[in-house]
């Protein structure tokens, strides 16, 4: 059973969403500092990452789910910009990096339940780059807080403690 889970995850990663293999945090550091990877961000990568990491963890491989959560957050953050007929003027390199940083920090903060830690994580990963304005810190922190609030609401709904 575990082998089947791992096989499905690997088939998806190898044949469909090739950008999803590995942790994603190292590539994220590269991306925030100005290197574009092929297939690193896209709808295929997102779906493969979400399903693949679930299957890999349940397949008893010795892997974690925190690094992929950062990658998933980064993907969602960038894909927000590509909603049709919206945000046309924001699709430049600088804004893309800002949105990716916000998404990744939201992912990490949800994984550890640490909003301030998530914001600092994005700050440290991007090695304060030129796209970091002063006002970005509190925007990223706000993104982390909203992510944690959403998680809290979902958890309480799931366990019927409202």
């Amino acid at each position, binding site marked *: 059973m575990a082998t089947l889970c791992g096989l499905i995850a690997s088939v998806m990663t190898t044949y469909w969403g090739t950008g999803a293999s590995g942790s994603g945090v190292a590539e994220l550091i590269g991306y925030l500092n100005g290197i574009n990877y092929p297939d690193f961000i896209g709808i295929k990568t997102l779906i493969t990452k979400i399903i693949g990491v679930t299957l890999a963890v349940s397949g008893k491989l010795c892997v974690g789910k*925190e690094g992929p959560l950062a990658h998933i957050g980064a993907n969602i953050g960038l894909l927000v910009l590509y909603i049709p007929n919206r945000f046309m003027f924001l699709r430049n390199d600088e804004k893309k990096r800002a949105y990716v940083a916000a998404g990744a920090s939201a992912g990490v903060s949800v994984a*550890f339940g640490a909003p301030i830690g998530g914001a600092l*994580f994005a700050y440290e990963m991007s090695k304060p780059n030129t796209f970091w304005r002063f006002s970005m810190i509190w925007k990223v922190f706000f993104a982390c807080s909203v992510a944690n609030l959403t998680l809290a609401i979902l958890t309480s709904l799931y366990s019927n403690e409202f």
Partner: protein
Amino acid sequence: MSVLKFGDVVDNYKGTDYWILVPSSLFIGVLGGLYGPLFININFRINAWRKNNIKSKCAKVIEAGFFCFLSASIFYFVPYIMNDCKEQGKNDGEKIRQEAWCPQSDDETIINYNPLATIMWSSEGEIIRNLMRQNFDITIPKLAVFALVWQILTAITYGVNVPAGLFLPGMVIGSATGELLARCMHEFHWIDEGMYGDVRKHFVVLGCSSFLAGYTRMTYSLAVIMMETSQSISIFIPIIFTIIVSN
């Protein structure tokens, strides 16, 4: 409220007991700093070999399936080889422990459980919470075996063509090592009985941060993340010592 949750880290130290955390945090930092480069070196060599020899897509899929089979069977059979049973009252812990191959006891209020199986068959967050629990009883060699199995499997698994993360294996190895250190110090009577329960929990958190800092090379963000996850202010300075030494 998070995906990964620690247990309750309480701190009620009396007098000068708190200062035991400072030299031990430095020592755990040395351990984590030694482990990080070792892990990266082994993993780098294995991945270089992997890149040269496994090229076709079919071979990559077969390799991932093989590693799944390998680690699942190791996790299943190690508790069988090192089988022993501990007793626990039925109403003590809130979570059910794995009864594995233990015989049923005659008394209704006592269940037998296998401590190694309990931590090997649970998810990663469960492992840390189980290690922190007050009356969790596991011997030192078994804890060492557990940490060793996770180290070897993580080093050879990372790089297989599946989505994989590196945060949680480091935390599991670190927490097992911290727990191991606390039990050794208790065995040699360096920690007295009264504060052993608190020191154990703090060592688990310190071990996590040290082993993560060893190979991810994060500094202040890791310190803040660990403090927020464990929700305890008083071990912030020991965590910072650990991370500095480890880096």
